[in-house]
């Protein structure tokens, strides 16, 4: 009767003693999330159901983060629609500009994510919360609208791929490099319909922000969810932010995995994803000479305070190369405040950076750093598809904040050793 952590969470939320991969279940949802792009369609679905009240106003989070501060009339109308719904339904967790930020940063930061929870969000990077031992998965707006009405969702229990990271990381290598390396190894559909469970001695020592980066990008390998079993590091993160009660769920030692992949990390270099796929990975030493026009540090993948600290350490006393536009966007207002207090923001400004208000920024080519034809950026984001950050003939390379910061100084893609 052994189960993985994911199977146990799903079984508990479906009121079952046991589930197996492939089972179709109706599960209770602890938290349902939508943003300014996906909420309008979800609200339309909710209205179509003929329901008047959401299932639980405390268990829904609505976050305006993609096109804020609103970039044009249309996006302002969408944000307005979400705001009016939030007021009408008295949604407890509605965030827009004030003490807000990127959805996947502020929900953990505000203590809304607890180990063992089942969370769905109308945003593919909802899988981020697995870093705290929750089952969390991206869905579409119709699913989310239905959840807002019923509090339940149909799910197929995924098989689990367990990835074990063993050895000792090099000093400038971290969670972003490990997840890029992993996507390069298993492919952009290598975990389609499956759970990626991150484990091994390396994960046990990895700080929280780097764990979030890894689970955040599980979807870039097709994963339904990414998850890390709770330990002292994640439990400390949660207890510092909330007094809400929760039950720690871990997998059975003899649970069944579809596949176990072991990765020795000792020789792994900083990794860079080349256009136009997060699976098109090269080690930094194999990048060659790639000049960049823009460097973006931020996003739900790498907009955490420690990401900014890592970048600032590289940039301290240095300047972005002539012709390079350096954009830094803290993941939340709280992170922004702390970064000001620590002098990190001043370091960025001294290096020639512009600081954006906490939001998704140029990651999805919406606004605040859209690329022109022929331009090239290196970004700490999660996707580098054709046209992702602007013109279809622009290029995006993905890396850690350390490599992005070094690249800003160099004017080409490189690491701290090249400075």
């Amino acid at each position, binding site marked *: 009767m052994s189960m993985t952590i994911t199977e146990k969470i799903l079984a508990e939320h479906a009121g079952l003693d046991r589930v197996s991969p492939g089972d179709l279940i109706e599960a209770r949802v602890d938290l349902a999330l939508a943003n300014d792009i996906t909420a309008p369609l979800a609200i339309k679905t909710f209205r179509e*159901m003929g329901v008047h009240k959401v299932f639980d106003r405390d268990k829904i989070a609505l976050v305006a983060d993609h096109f804020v501060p609103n970039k044009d009339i249309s996006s302002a109308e969408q944000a307005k629609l979400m705001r009016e719904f939030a007021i009408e339904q008295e949604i407890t967790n509605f965030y827009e500009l004030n003490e807000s930020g990127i959805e996947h940063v502020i929900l953990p930061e505000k203590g809304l994510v607890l180990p063992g929870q089942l969370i769905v969000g*109308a945003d593919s990077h909802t899988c981020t919360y697995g870093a705290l031992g929750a089952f969390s998965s991206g869905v579409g707006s*119709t699913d989310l609208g239905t959840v807002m*009405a*019923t509090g339940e969702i149909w799910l197929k229990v995924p098989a689990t791929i367990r990835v074990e990271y063993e050895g000792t990381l090099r000093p400038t290598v971290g969670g972003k490099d490990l997840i890029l390396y992993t996507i390069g190894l298993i492919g952009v559909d290598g975990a389609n319909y499956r759970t990626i469970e991150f484990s091994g001695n390396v994960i046990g020592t990895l700080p929280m922000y780097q764990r979030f980066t890894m689970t955040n990008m599980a979807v870039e390998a097709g994963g339904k969810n990414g998850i890390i079993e709770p330990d002292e590091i994640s439990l400390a993160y949660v207890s510092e932010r909330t007094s809400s009660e929760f039950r720690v769920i871990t997998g059975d030692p003899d649970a069944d995995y579809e596949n176990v992949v072991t990765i020795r990390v000792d020789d792994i270099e900083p990794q860079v994803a080349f256009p136009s796929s997060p699976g098109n990975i090269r080690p930094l030493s194999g990048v060659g000479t790639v000049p960049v026009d823009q460097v973006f540090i931020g996003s739900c993948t790498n907009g955490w305070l420690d990401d900014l600290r890592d970048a600032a350490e590289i940039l301290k006393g240095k300047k972005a190369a002539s012709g390079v536009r350096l954009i830094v966007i803290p993941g939340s207002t709280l992170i922004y405040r702390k970064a000001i207090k620590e002098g990190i923001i001043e370091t960025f400004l001294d290096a020639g950076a512009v600081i954006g208000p906490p939001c998704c920024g140029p990651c999805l080519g919406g606004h605040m750093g859209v690329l022109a034809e022929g331009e090239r950026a290196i970004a700490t984001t999660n996707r580098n598809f054709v046209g992702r950050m602007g013109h279809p003939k622009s290029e995006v390379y993905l890396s850690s904040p350390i490599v992005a910061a070094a690249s800003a100084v160099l004017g080409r893609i490189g690491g701290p050793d090249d400075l």
Partner: protein
Amino acid sequence: MIIKGKIWKFGDDVDTDIIIPARYLNVSDARELAQNCFADLRPDFIAGVSEGDIIVAGRNFGCGSSREHAPLAIKTAGIGLIIAESFARIFYRNSFNIGLALLESEEAAESFSEGDEAVVDLATGRIEYIGSGKIFTAKPIPAFMEELINSGGLVNYTKKTKLKNG
């Protein structure tokens, strides 16, 4: 349900950013979204697509963002069915939830070319390649997905099964 139409051929890993770039996501009206479907990759798509046409693609169709605007734009543009070697999971879910049919067939994905014609029986998964004499059989649609499609999507299914008094 029988779908007959001409084929629009795509490769592997067609992502939702290329189906509908994020700069067009500041609206949620289906017809407006459809106007920008494949705007960057296939600017000829919207002008040329006819009701009931079929997209045939390789692996991992619909990967990336969870934006339901992607299947919605495709469906509203007139596409009656997507046949691919495989689909990314959120796209798969979203499509059935809004009543856009998907079939998986590696053989069909490899055999069809742009502009070919096909007749497909959704109930049986029989794919007839018009003019070639070839017949393919898609993987059967899971029973629950068939129930969703038969109900007309997730909203109607949920109304029927859970919100009887709603």
